[in-house]
Protein backbone atom coordinates (compact mmCIF):
# COMPACT_ATOMS: atom_id res chain seq x y z
CA UNK A 1 0.00 0.00 0.00
CA UNK A 2 1.51 3.28 -1.01
CA UNK A 3 0.94 5.83 1.67
CA UNK A 4 1.39 9.51 1.15
CA UNK A 5 4.28 11.12 3.00
CA UNK A 6 3.80 14.72 3.93
CA UNK A 7 5.31 16.72 6.75
CA UNK A 8 3.19 18.27 9.45
CA UNK A 9 1.01 20.16 9.84
CA UNK A 10 -1.55 18.21 7.93
CA UNK A 11 -4.41 20.53 8.64
CA UNK A 12 -4.70 23.88 6.99
CA UNK A 13 -6.78 26.91 7.78
CA UNK A 14 -9.47 28.25 5.51
CA UNK A 15 -7.53 31.32 4.39
CA UNK A 16 -5.92 31.46 1.00
CA UNK A 17 -4.16 34.26 -0.77
CA UNK A 18 -6.82 34.27 -3.44
CA UNK A 19 -9.47 34.66 -0.79
CA UNK A 20 -7.60 37.49 0.85
CA UNK A 21 -7.48 39.28 -2.47
CA UNK A 22 -11.11 38.53 -3.22
CA UNK A 23 -12.07 40.01 0.11
CA UNK A 24 -10.13 43.13 -0.66
CA UNK A 25 -11.91 43.41 -3.98
CA UNK A 26 -15.28 42.93 -2.33
CA UNK A 27 -14.51 45.54 0.27
CA UNK A 28 -13.97 48.19 -2.37
CA UNK A 29 -17.50 47.78 -3.66
CA UNK A 30 -19.27 50.28 -1.38
CA UNK A 31 -16.66 52.91 -2.10
CA UNK A 32 -16.95 52.38 -5.83
CA UNK A 33 -20.72 52.62 -5.65
CA UNK A 34 -20.55 55.91 -3.80
CA UNK A 35 -17.96 57.27 -6.21
CA UNK A 36 -20.14 56.29 -9.13
CA UNK A 37 -23.13 57.91 -7.51
CA UNK A 38 -21.36 61.20 -7.07
CA UNK A 39 -19.03 61.32 -10.03
CA UNK A 40 -20.70 59.16 -12.63
CA UNK A 41 -19.43 56.10 -14.38
CA UNK A 42 -15.89 57.36 -14.80
CA UNK A 43 -14.44 55.37 -11.94
CA UNK A 44 -16.19 52.22 -13.06
CA UNK A 45 -14.79 52.53 -16.57
CA UNK A 46 -11.37 53.21 -15.08
CA UNK A 47 -11.56 50.05 -13.03
CA UNK A 48 -12.73 47.84 -15.84
CA UNK A 49 -10.19 49.07 -18.33
CA UNK A 50 -7.45 48.89 -15.73
CA UNK A 51 -8.41 45.32 -14.88
CA UNK A 52 -8.27 44.18 -18.47
CA UNK A 53 -4.90 45.79 -18.94
CA UNK A 54 -3.59 44.45 -15.66
CA UNK A 55 -4.45 40.88 -16.54
CA UNK A 56 -2.88 41.32 -19.94
CA UNK A 57 0.31 42.80 -18.57
CA UNK A 58 0.47 40.23 -15.82
CA UNK A 59 0.12 37.45 -18.36
CA UNK A 60 2.77 39.05 -20.51
CA UNK A 61 5.18 39.38 -17.62
CA UNK A 62 4.56 35.82 -16.50
CA UNK A 63 5.11 34.56 -20.02
CA UNK A 64 8.37 36.49 -20.25
CA UNK A 65 9.44 35.15 -16.89
CA UNK A 66 8.39 31.65 -17.92
CA UNK A 67 5.97 31.16 -15.03
CA UNK A 68 2.77 29.16 -15.20
CA UNK A 69 0.02 31.57 -16.14
CA UNK A 70 -3.04 30.09 -14.51
CA UNK A 71 -1.48 29.50 -11.15
CA UNK A 72 -0.25 33.05 -10.75
CA UNK A 73 -3.16 34.81 -12.38
CA UNK A 74 -5.34 32.92 -9.93
CA UNK A 75 -4.00 34.85 -6.98
CA UNK A 76 -6.02 37.94 -7.96
CA UNK A 77 -3.18 40.24 -6.98
CA UNK A 78 -3.04 41.91 -10.38
CA UNK A 79 -6.76 42.58 -10.23
CA UNK A 80 -6.42 44.16 -6.82
CA UNK A 81 -3.70 46.45 -8.10
CA UNK A 82 -5.84 47.39 -11.08
CA UNK A 83 -8.92 48.13 -9.02
CA UNK A 84 -7.00 50.19 -6.51
CA UNK A 85 -5.34 52.20 -9.25
CA UNK A 86 -8.65 52.61 -11.07
CA UNK A 87 -10.21 54.06 -7.96
CA UNK A 88 -7.29 56.34 -7.30
CA UNK A 89 -7.23 57.82 -10.79
CA UNK A 90 -9.54 60.69 -11.65
CA UNK A 91 -12.78 59.54 -13.25
CA UNK A 92 -12.89 59.87 -17.05
CA UNK A 93 -9.17 59.32 -17.44
CA UNK A 94 -8.07 58.61 -21.02
CA UNK A 95 -7.17 55.03 -21.89
CA UNK A 96 -3.49 55.67 -22.40
CA UNK A 97 -3.17 57.24 -18.99
CA UNK A 98 -4.50 54.12 -17.39
CA UNK A 99 -2.33 51.95 -19.61
CA UNK A 100 0.82 53.76 -18.61
CA UNK A 101 -0.19 53.55 -14.97
CA UNK A 102 -0.93 49.84 -15.10
CA UNK A 103 2.25 49.15 -17.04
CA UNK A 104 4.23 50.94 -14.38
CA UNK A 105 2.41 49.09 -11.63
CA UNK A 106 2.59 45.60 -12.99
CA UNK A 107 5.77 45.60 -15.01
CA UNK A 108 7.91 48.13 -13.25
CA UNK A 109 6.87 47.93 -9.64
CA UNK A 110 5.93 44.28 -9.45
CA UNK A 111 7.55 41.98 -11.93
CA UNK A 112 10.85 43.76 -12.30
CA UNK A 113 11.30 43.14 -8.59
CA UNK A 114 10.37 39.48 -8.79
CA UNK A 115 6.60 39.37 -8.71
CA UNK A 116 4.10 39.16 -5.92
CA UNK A 117 5.69 39.12 -2.51
CA UNK A 118 8.97 40.61 -3.61
CA UNK A 119 7.95 44.12 -4.53
CA UNK A 120 9.32 46.67 -2.10
CA UNK A 121 6.82 49.30 -3.22
CA UNK A 122 3.10 49.25 -3.43
CA UNK A 123 2.46 48.65 -7.15
CA UNK A 124 -0.73 50.69 -7.37
CA UNK A 125 0.95 53.64 -5.77
CA UNK A 126 3.99 53.40 -8.01
CA UNK A 127 1.66 53.55 -10.99
CA UNK A 128 -0.17 56.46 -9.49
CA UNK A 129 2.96 58.43 -8.73
CA UNK A 130 4.43 57.79 -12.17
CA UNK A 131 1.28 59.26 -13.66
CA UNK A 132 1.11 62.13 -11.21
CA UNK A 133 4.65 63.17 -12.00
CA UNK A 134 4.34 62.68 -15.72
CA UNK A 135 0.87 63.99 -16.43
CA UNK A 136 0.02 66.54 -13.78
CA UNK A 137 -2.70 68.10 -15.87
CA UNK A 138 -4.74 64.97 -16.43
CA UNK A 139 -4.12 63.78 -12.94
CA UNK A 140 -5.49 66.83 -11.27
CA UNK A 141 -8.67 67.25 -13.24
CA UNK A 142 -11.39 65.67 -11.17
CA UNK A 143 -14.93 65.61 -12.38
CA UNK A 144 -17.36 67.88 -10.63
CA UNK A 145 -19.56 65.99 -8.19
CA UNK A 146 -23.27 65.44 -8.63
CA UNK A 147 -25.26 68.50 -7.79
CA UNK A 148 -22.43 70.78 -8.76
CA UNK A 149 -21.93 69.92 -12.39
CA UNK A 150 -23.59 67.83 -15.08
CA UNK A 151 -22.95 64.14 -14.67
CA UNK A 152 -21.90 62.37 -17.85
CA UNK A 153 -23.63 59.13 -18.66
CA UNK A 154 -22.14 55.71 -19.26
CA UNK A 155 -21.61 56.32 -22.96
CA UNK A 156 -19.92 59.58 -22.25
CA UNK A 157 -17.72 57.82 -19.78
CA UNK A 158 -16.65 55.27 -22.36
CA UNK A 159 -16.03 58.02 -24.83
CA UNK A 160 -13.96 59.90 -22.31
CA UNK A 161 -11.80 56.88 -21.87
CA UNK A 162 -11.32 55.71 -25.41
CA UNK A 163 -11.63 58.81 -27.52
CA UNK A 164 -10.45 61.39 -25.07
CA UNK A 165 -10.15 64.05 -27.75
CA UNK A 166 -13.90 64.25 -28.23
CA UNK A 167 -14.85 64.52 -24.63
CA UNK A 168 -14.89 67.50 -22.39
CA UNK A 169 -15.91 66.76 -18.87
CA UNK A 170 -16.82 69.37 -16.36
CA UNK A 171 -13.87 69.33 -14.06
CA UNK A 172 -13.26 71.20 -10.90
CA UNK A 173 -10.57 71.69 -8.37
CA UNK A 174 -10.84 69.25 -5.51
CA UNK A 175 -11.31 70.54 -2.00
CA UNK A 176 -7.70 69.71 -1.25
CA UNK A 177 -6.63 71.80 -4.23
CA UNK A 178 -8.74 74.67 -3.05
CA UNK A 179 -7.32 74.46 0.41
CA UNK A 180 -3.83 74.43 -0.96
CA UNK A 181 -4.41 77.43 -3.22
CA UNK A 182 -6.29 79.38 -0.60
CA UNK A 183 -4.33 82.09 1.07
CA UNK A 184 -6.75 84.82 1.91
CA UNK A 185 -10.10 83.33 2.82
CA UNK A 186 -11.21 82.15 6.19
CA UNK A 187 -12.21 78.53 6.23
CA UNK A 188 -15.87 79.35 6.52
CA UNK A 189 -15.74 81.71 3.56
CA UNK A 190 -13.88 79.17 1.51
CA UNK A 191 -16.59 76.70 2.31
CA UNK A 192 -19.32 79.10 1.26
CA UNK A 193 -17.74 80.28 -1.92
CA UNK A 194 -17.05 76.89 -3.36
CA UNK A 195 -19.83 74.51 -4.16
CA UNK A 196 -17.51 71.50 -3.88
CA UNK A 197 -17.48 71.61 -0.14
CA UNK A 198 -20.01 69.50 1.65
CA UNK A 199 -20.76 68.98 5.27
CA UNK A 200 -17.26 68.07 6.54
CA UNK A 201 -15.13 67.87 3.43
CA UNK A 202 -15.85 67.71 -0.30
CA UNK A 203 -19.25 66.68 -1.59
CA UNK A 204 -19.00 63.08 -2.60
CA UNK A 205 -15.55 62.77 -1.08
CA UNK A 206 -16.86 62.58 2.41
CA UNK A 207 -19.32 59.85 1.55
CA UNK A 208 -16.82 57.91 -0.50
CA UNK A 209 -14.40 58.09 2.41
CA UNK A 210 -17.04 56.75 4.74
CA UNK A 211 -17.81 53.96 2.32
CA UNK A 212 -14.16 53.00 2.15
CA UNK A 213 -14.06 53.14 5.92
CA UNK A 214 -16.94 50.69 6.01
CA UNK A 215 -15.22 48.38 3.55
CA UNK A 216 -12.03 48.60 5.56
CA UNK A 217 -13.79 47.77 8.79
CA UNK A 218 -15.32 44.75 7.14
CA UNK A 219 -11.85 43.63 6.08
CA UNK A 220 -10.67 44.11 9.63
CA UNK A 221 -13.53 41.97 10.80
CA UNK A 222 -12.55 39.36 8.23
CA UNK A 223 -9.04 39.46 9.68
CA UNK A 224 -7.54 40.22 6.32
CA UNK A 225 -5.20 42.60 8.10
CA UNK A 226 -4.70 43.89 11.60
CA UNK A 227 -5.87 47.24 12.85
CA UNK A 228 -2.42 48.55 13.61
CA UNK A 229 -1.36 50.32 10.45
CA UNK A 230 -4.69 51.94 9.44
CA UNK A 231 -5.60 53.10 12.91
CA UNK A 232 -2.12 54.41 13.54
CA UNK A 233 -2.25 56.34 10.30
CA UNK A 234 -5.67 57.85 10.94
CA UNK A 235 -4.82 58.76 14.50
CA UNK A 236 -1.51 60.30 13.52
CA UNK A 237 -3.14 62.29 10.74
CA UNK A 238 -5.94 63.52 12.96
CA UNK A 239 -3.57 64.43 15.76
CA UNK A 240 -1.24 66.35 13.49
CA UNK A 241 -4.15 68.14 11.88
CA UNK A 242 -5.57 69.00 15.29
CA UNK A 243 -2.22 70.28 16.40
CA UNK A 244 -1.96 72.66 13.48
CA UNK A 245 -5.62 73.60 13.26
CA UNK A 246 -6.28 77.10 14.42
CA UNK A 247 -10.03 77.13 14.15
CA UNK A 248 -10.32 78.24 10.57
CA UNK A 249 -8.04 81.12 9.65
CA UNK A 250 -6.84 81.49 6.08
CA UNK A 251 -3.54 79.91 7.02
CA UNK A 252 -5.31 76.93 8.52
CA UNK A 253 -4.34 73.51 7.31
CA UNK A 254 -7.87 72.20 7.56
CA UNK A 255 -9.67 70.50 10.41
CA UNK A 256 -8.84 66.95 11.47
CA UNK A 257 -12.21 65.78 10.18
CA UNK A 258 -11.58 67.45 6.86
CA UNK A 259 -8.31 65.58 6.51
CA UNK A 260 -9.77 62.29 7.54
CA UNK A 261 -12.54 62.52 4.99
CA UNK A 262 -10.68 64.18 2.15
CA UNK A 263 -8.78 62.79 -0.74
CA UNK A 264 -7.46 59.31 -0.37
CA UNK A 265 -7.16 59.20 3.40
CA UNK A 266 -9.62 56.42 4.15
CA UNK A 267 -8.93 54.62 0.93
CA UNK A 268 -5.24 54.75 1.66
CA UNK A 269 -5.59 53.75 5.26
CA UNK A 270 -7.53 50.59 4.59
CA UNK A 271 -6.60 49.60 1.06
CA UNK A 272 -3.17 50.96 0.33
CA UNK A 273 -1.03 50.92 3.43
CA UNK A 274 -2.46 47.58 4.42
CA UNK A 275 -0.83 46.00 1.40
CA UNK A 276 1.20 43.54 3.41
CA UNK A 277 4.02 43.00 0.96
CA UNK A 278 5.45 46.45 1.13
CA UNK A 279 4.70 47.34 4.72
CA UNK A 280 6.43 46.52 7.96
CA UNK A 281 5.92 43.00 9.28
CA UNK A 282 5.47 43.05 13.03
CA UNK A 283 2.52 44.67 14.74
CA UNK A 284 4.71 47.20 16.44
CA UNK A 285 6.38 47.89 13.13
CA UNK A 286 3.01 48.46 11.53
CA UNK A 287 2.06 50.95 14.19
CA UNK A 288 5.17 52.96 13.45
CA UNK A 289 4.70 52.52 9.72
CA UNK A 290 1.10 53.75 9.79
CA UNK A 291 1.75 56.62 12.14
CA UNK A 292 4.59 57.95 10.03
CA UNK A 293 2.43 57.76 6.93
CA UNK A 294 -0.25 59.76 8.69
CA UNK A 295 2.27 62.39 9.65
CA UNK A 296 3.75 62.54 6.17
CA UNK A 297 0.32 62.82 4.57
CA UNK A 298 -0.42 65.92 6.55
CA UNK A 299 2.98 67.47 5.97
CA UNK A 300 2.92 66.90 2.23
CA UNK A 301 -0.68 68.04 1.89
CA UNK A 302 -0.08 71.26 3.71
CA UNK A 303 3.54 72.04 2.96
CA UNK A 304 4.34 70.01 -0.15
CA UNK A 305 3.81 70.60 -3.82
CA UNK A 306 0.98 68.20 -4.36
CA UNK A 307 -2.51 68.55 -2.96
CA UNK A 308 -2.91 64.92 -1.97
CA UNK A 309 -0.14 62.97 -0.43
CA UNK A 310 -1.13 59.44 0.36
CA UNK A 311 0.77 57.95 -2.56
CA UNK A 312 3.98 59.78 -1.78
CA UNK A 313 3.74 59.09 1.90
CA UNK A 314 3.18 55.41 1.26
CA UNK A 315 6.11 55.13 -1.13
CA UNK A 316 8.43 56.95 1.24
CA UNK A 317 7.45 54.65 4.06
CA UNK A 318 7.84 51.61 1.82
CA UNK A 319 11.47 52.62 1.67
CA UNK A 320 11.62 52.72 5.41
CA UNK A 321 9.80 49.46 6.08
CA UNK A 322 12.86 47.18 6.26
CA UNK A 323 14.48 49.65 8.58
CA UNK A 324 11.43 49.70 10.81
CA UNK A 325 11.43 45.91 10.82
CA UNK A 326 14.97 45.93 12.04
CA UNK A 327 14.03 47.81 15.16
CA UNK A 328 10.65 46.37 15.91
CA UNK A 329 11.39 42.68 16.04
CA UNK A 330 9.01 41.33 18.65
CA UNK A 331 10.27 39.79 21.84
CA UNK A 332 10.18 36.06 21.37
CA UNK A 333 9.01 33.62 23.99
CA UNK A 334 11.60 33.08 26.67
CA UNK A 335 13.74 36.04 25.72
CA UNK A 336 14.18 38.66 28.35
CA UNK A 337 14.43 41.61 26.02
CA UNK A 338 15.10 42.52 22.46
CA UNK A 339 18.37 41.24 21.20
CA UNK A 340 19.92 44.61 20.65
CA UNK A 341 19.90 45.04 24.39
CA UNK A 342 21.69 41.79 24.97
CA UNK A 343 24.48 42.42 22.60
Amino acid at each position, binding site marked *: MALMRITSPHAHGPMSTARVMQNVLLATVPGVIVLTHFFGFGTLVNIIWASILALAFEALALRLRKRPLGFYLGDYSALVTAVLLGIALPPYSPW*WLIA*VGIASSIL*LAKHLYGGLGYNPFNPAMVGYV*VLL*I*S*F*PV*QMSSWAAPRGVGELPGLLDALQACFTPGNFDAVTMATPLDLLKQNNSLLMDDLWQQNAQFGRWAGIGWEWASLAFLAGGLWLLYQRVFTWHAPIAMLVALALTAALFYDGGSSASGGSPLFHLLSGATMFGAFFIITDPVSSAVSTRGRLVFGALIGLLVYLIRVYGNYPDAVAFAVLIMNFAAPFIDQYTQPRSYGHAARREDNE
Partner: protein
Amino acid sequence: MAEVSYRELSLNGLWKNNPAIVQLLGLCPLLAVTGSVVNAIGLALATCLVLVTSNTAVSLIRNIVSDAVRLPVFVMIIASAVTCIELLMQAFAYELYQILGIFLPLITTNCVILGRAEAFACKNGLLPSIYDGLIMGAGFGVILILLGGLRELAGTGALFADMQLLFGPGAADWKIVIVDNYQAFLLAILPPGAFIFTGLIIAVKNIIDARIQARLDSLKERPVKGSKRVRVTGTIS
Protein backbone atom coordinates in the same frame (compact mmCIF):
# COMPACT_ATOMS: atom_id res chain seq x y z
CA MET B 1 51.91 45.69 -20.68
CA ALA B 2 54.03 45.77 -23.72
CA GLU B 3 51.56 44.31 -26.11
CA VAL B 4 48.34 46.23 -26.31
CA SER B 5 45.70 44.74 -28.49
CA TYR B 6 43.59 47.48 -30.02
CA ARG B 7 40.88 44.99 -30.60
CA GLU B 8 40.81 44.17 -26.94
CA LEU B 9 40.77 47.84 -26.08
CA SER B 10 37.83 48.50 -28.34
CA LEU B 11 35.87 45.58 -27.01
CA ASN B 12 36.54 46.70 -23.47
CA GLY B 13 35.59 50.28 -23.97
CA LEU B 14 32.47 49.66 -25.94
CA TRP B 15 31.08 46.55 -24.34
CA LYS B 16 32.84 44.39 -21.80
CA ASN B 17 34.02 47.17 -19.59
CA ASN B 18 31.80 49.97 -20.70
CA PRO B 19 32.36 52.86 -18.31
CA ALA B 20 28.70 53.77 -18.07
CA ILE B 21 26.83 50.51 -17.79
CA VAL B 22 29.43 48.10 -16.48
CA GLN B 23 31.72 50.19 -14.37
CA LEU B 24 28.85 52.54 -13.58
CA LEU B 25 31.23 55.46 -13.56
CA GLY B 26 30.28 59.02 -14.28
CA LEU B 27 26.67 58.39 -13.41
CA CYS B 28 26.11 61.95 -12.30
CA PRO B 29 26.32 63.55 -15.74
CA LEU B 30 24.89 60.42 -17.27
CA LEU B 31 21.72 60.74 -15.28
CA ALA B 32 21.53 64.49 -15.23
CA VAL B 33 21.90 65.62 -18.82
CA THR B 34 20.46 62.80 -20.88
CA GLY B 35 17.02 64.34 -21.15
CA SER B 36 17.45 64.80 -24.87
CA VAL B 37 19.73 63.60 -27.64
CA VAL B 38 21.32 66.95 -28.20
CA ASN B 39 22.33 67.33 -24.60
CA ALA B 40 23.68 63.82 -24.60
CA ILE B 41 25.71 64.40 -27.74
CA GLY B 42 27.10 67.62 -26.35
CA LEU B 43 28.21 66.03 -23.17
CA ALA B 44 29.43 62.91 -24.92
CA LEU B 45 31.64 64.93 -27.22
CA ALA B 46 32.96 67.04 -24.40
CA THR B 47 33.73 64.04 -22.27
CA CYS B 48 35.36 62.21 -25.10
CA LEU B 49 37.55 65.16 -25.94
CA VAL B 50 38.59 65.57 -22.35
CA LEU B 51 39.34 61.88 -22.10
CA VAL B 52 41.55 61.90 -25.15
CA THR B 53 43.35 65.03 -24.09
CA SER B 54 43.93 63.94 -20.56
CA ASN B 55 45.01 60.45 -21.58
CA THR B 56 47.46 61.94 -24.04
CA ALA B 57 48.93 64.31 -21.52
CA VAL B 58 49.10 61.73 -18.76
CA SER B 59 50.71 59.20 -21.00
CA LEU B 60 53.32 61.74 -22.09
CA ILE B 61 54.34 62.70 -18.61
CA ARG B 62 53.90 59.31 -17.01
CA ASN B 63 57.62 58.73 -16.63
CA ILE B 64 58.35 62.17 -15.25
CA VAL B 65 55.77 62.47 -12.52
CA SER B 66 56.58 60.77 -9.24
CA ASP B 67 54.04 58.47 -7.74
CA ALA B 68 53.44 60.65 -4.73
CA VAL B 69 52.11 63.62 -6.66
CA ARG B 70 50.55 61.88 -9.60
CA LEU B 71 46.92 62.30 -8.59
CA PRO B 72 47.05 66.09 -8.15
CA VAL B 73 48.90 66.31 -11.42
CA PHE B 74 46.29 64.25 -13.21
CA VAL B 75 43.52 66.35 -11.78
CA MET B 76 45.24 69.50 -12.92
CA ILE B 77 45.60 68.14 -16.38
CA ILE B 78 41.98 67.10 -16.52
CA ALA B 79 40.81 70.44 -15.13
CA SER B 80 42.80 72.32 -17.74
CA ALA B 81 41.36 70.18 -20.49
CA VAL B 82 37.87 70.73 -19.19
CA THR B 83 38.38 74.44 -19.01
CA CYS B 84 39.51 74.49 -22.60
CA ILE B 85 36.50 72.53 -23.73
CA GLU B 86 34.22 74.73 -21.69
CA LEU B 87 35.60 77.85 -23.32
CA LEU B 88 35.29 76.30 -26.75
CA MET B 89 31.66 75.44 -26.12
CA GLN B 90 30.99 78.85 -24.79
CA ALA B 91 32.32 80.22 -28.05
CA PHE B 92 30.66 77.88 -30.52
CA ALA B 93 27.60 76.38 -28.86
CA TYR B 94 26.54 78.90 -26.34
CA GLU B 95 22.99 77.67 -25.85
CA LEU B 96 24.07 74.14 -25.30
CA TYR B 97 26.74 75.43 -22.97
CA GLN B 98 24.00 77.04 -20.97
CA ILE B 99 21.86 73.95 -20.95
CA LEU B 100 24.68 71.69 -19.85
CA GLY B 101 25.54 74.28 -17.23
CA ILE B 102 27.33 72.95 -14.23
CA PHE B 103 27.80 69.54 -15.77
CA LEU B 104 30.49 70.79 -18.08
CA PRO B 105 32.93 71.87 -15.38
CA LEU B 106 31.86 68.81 -13.46
CA ILE B 107 33.44 66.62 -16.12
CA THR B 108 36.59 67.22 -14.12
CA THR B 109 35.27 65.04 -11.40
CA ASN B 110 33.94 62.40 -13.74
CA CYS B 111 35.50 59.21 -12.47
CA VAL B 112 35.81 57.79 -15.95
CA ILE B 113 38.47 60.28 -16.81
CA LEU B 114 40.57 60.03 -13.71
CA GLY B 115 39.99 56.30 -13.77
CA ARG B 116 41.42 55.92 -17.26
CA ALA B 117 44.33 58.19 -16.47
CA GLU B 118 45.16 56.18 -13.42
CA ALA B 119 44.39 52.74 -14.73
CA PHE B 120 45.61 52.99 -18.26
CA ALA B 121 47.31 56.12 -19.49
CA CYS B 122 49.91 56.29 -16.77
CA LYS B 123 51.05 52.78 -17.56
CA ASN B 124 50.90 52.76 -21.33
CA GLY B 125 52.46 54.42 -24.28
CA LEU B 126 51.08 57.40 -26.13
CA LEU B 127 49.20 55.72 -28.93
CA PRO B 128 47.39 53.10 -26.91
CA SER B 129 46.46 55.76 -24.38
CA ILE B 130 44.98 58.02 -27.00
CA TYR B 131 43.10 55.11 -28.42
CA ASP B 132 41.89 54.05 -25.02
CA GLY B 133 40.65 57.55 -24.28
CA LEU B 134 38.87 57.65 -27.56
CA ILE B 135 37.21 54.31 -27.20
CA MET B 136 36.26 54.78 -23.59
CA GLY B 137 34.85 58.16 -24.46
CA ALA B 138 32.96 56.54 -27.29
CA GLY B 139 31.62 53.81 -25.01
CA PHE B 140 30.48 56.37 -22.53
CA GLY B 141 29.09 58.58 -25.26
CA VAL B 142 27.15 55.80 -26.93
CA ILE B 143 25.32 55.04 -23.75
CA LEU B 144 24.78 58.71 -23.11
CA ILE B 145 23.26 59.22 -26.54
CA LEU B 146 21.24 56.03 -26.34
CA LEU B 147 19.83 57.09 -23.02
CA GLY B 148 19.20 60.58 -24.32
CA GLY B 149 17.38 59.17 -27.31
CA LEU B 150 15.24 56.82 -25.25
CA ARG B 151 14.30 59.47 -22.78
CA GLU B 152 13.59 62.06 -25.39
CA LEU B 153 11.46 59.63 -27.32
CA ALA B 154 9.56 58.45 -24.29
CA GLY B 155 9.28 61.90 -22.85
CA THR B 156 8.25 63.92 -25.88
CA GLY B 157 7.47 61.49 -28.66
CA ALA B 158 10.11 63.07 -30.89
CA LEU B 159 13.83 62.70 -31.57
CA PHE B 160 16.68 65.07 -32.38
CA ALA B 161 14.89 68.21 -31.33
CA ASP B 162 16.93 71.38 -30.99
CA MET B 163 19.91 70.01 -32.83
CA GLN B 164 20.72 73.52 -33.94
CA LEU B 165 22.10 74.15 -30.50
CA LEU B 166 25.04 72.01 -31.40
CA PHE B 167 25.18 71.84 -35.15
CA GLY B 168 24.15 75.29 -36.17
CA PRO B 169 20.93 76.62 -37.72
CA GLY B 170 21.06 74.08 -40.52
CA ALA B 171 20.17 71.38 -38.09
CA ALA B 172 17.00 73.02 -36.89
CA ASP B 173 14.75 70.78 -38.94
CA TRP B 174 16.42 67.53 -37.99
CA LYS B 175 13.69 66.94 -35.51
CA ILE B 176 11.71 63.80 -36.19
CA VAL B 177 8.29 63.56 -34.66
CA ILE B 178 7.70 59.88 -34.13
CA VAL B 179 4.31 60.04 -32.49
CA ASP B 180 1.94 62.82 -33.36
CA ASN B 181 -0.01 64.46 -30.64
CA TYR B 182 2.16 62.86 -28.00
CA GLN B 183 1.30 63.60 -24.43
CA ALA B 184 4.52 64.62 -22.77
CA PHE B 185 5.60 61.83 -20.45
CA LEU B 186 7.42 63.89 -17.91
CA LEU B 187 8.68 61.02 -15.84
CA ALA B 188 11.07 59.97 -18.58
CA ILE B 189 12.66 63.37 -18.69
CA LEU B 190 12.75 63.81 -14.94
CA PRO B 191 15.53 62.17 -12.92
CA PRO B 192 13.55 58.97 -12.10
CA GLY B 193 13.36 58.30 -15.82
CA ALA B 194 17.14 58.39 -16.05
CA PHE B 195 17.44 55.73 -13.38
CA ILE B 196 14.76 53.55 -14.85
CA PHE B 197 16.14 53.69 -18.37
CA THR B 198 19.72 53.15 -17.25
CA GLY B 199 18.54 50.12 -15.35
CA LEU B 200 16.75 48.84 -18.42
CA ILE B 201 19.81 49.30 -20.61
CA ILE B 202 21.94 47.41 -18.10
CA ALA B 203 19.33 44.69 -17.97
CA VAL B 204 19.32 44.34 -21.73
CA LYS B 205 23.08 44.15 -21.78
CA ASN B 206 23.02 41.43 -19.15
CA ILE B 207 20.46 39.48 -21.12
CA ILE B 208 22.62 39.64 -24.21
CA ASP B 209 25.67 38.61 -22.23
CA ALA B 210 23.78 35.70 -20.72
CA ARG B 211 22.64 34.56 -24.15
CA ILE B 212 26.16 34.74 -25.49
CA GLN B 213 27.46 32.87 -22.52
CA ALA B 214 24.81 30.23 -22.91
CA ARG B 215 25.70 29.75 -26.53
CA LEU B 216 29.40 29.49 -25.72
CA ASP B 217 28.62 27.00 -23.01
CA SER B 218 26.50 24.90 -25.28
CA LEU B 219 29.36 24.85 -27.76
CA LYS B 220 31.76 23.76 -25.08
CA GLU B 221 29.39 21.27 -23.54
CA ARG B 222 29.99 18.26 -25.73
CA PRO B 223 33.74 17.80 -25.40
CA VAL B 224 33.50 18.34 -21.67
CA LYS B 225 30.93 15.62 -21.35
CA GLY B 226 33.17 13.10 -23.00
CA SER B 227 36.12 13.89 -20.86
CA LYS B 228 33.95 13.71 -17.77
CA ARG B 229 32.87 10.24 -18.62
CA VAL B 230 36.47 9.21 -18.88
CA ARG B 231 37.17 10.63 -15.47
CA VAL B 232 34.40 8.68 -13.82
CA THR B 233 36.52 5.59 -13.63
CA GLY B 234 39.11 7.50 -11.68
CA THR B 235 38.63 8.77 -8.20
CA ILE B 236 35.22 8.72 -6.71
CA SER B 237 35.11 11.25 -4.01
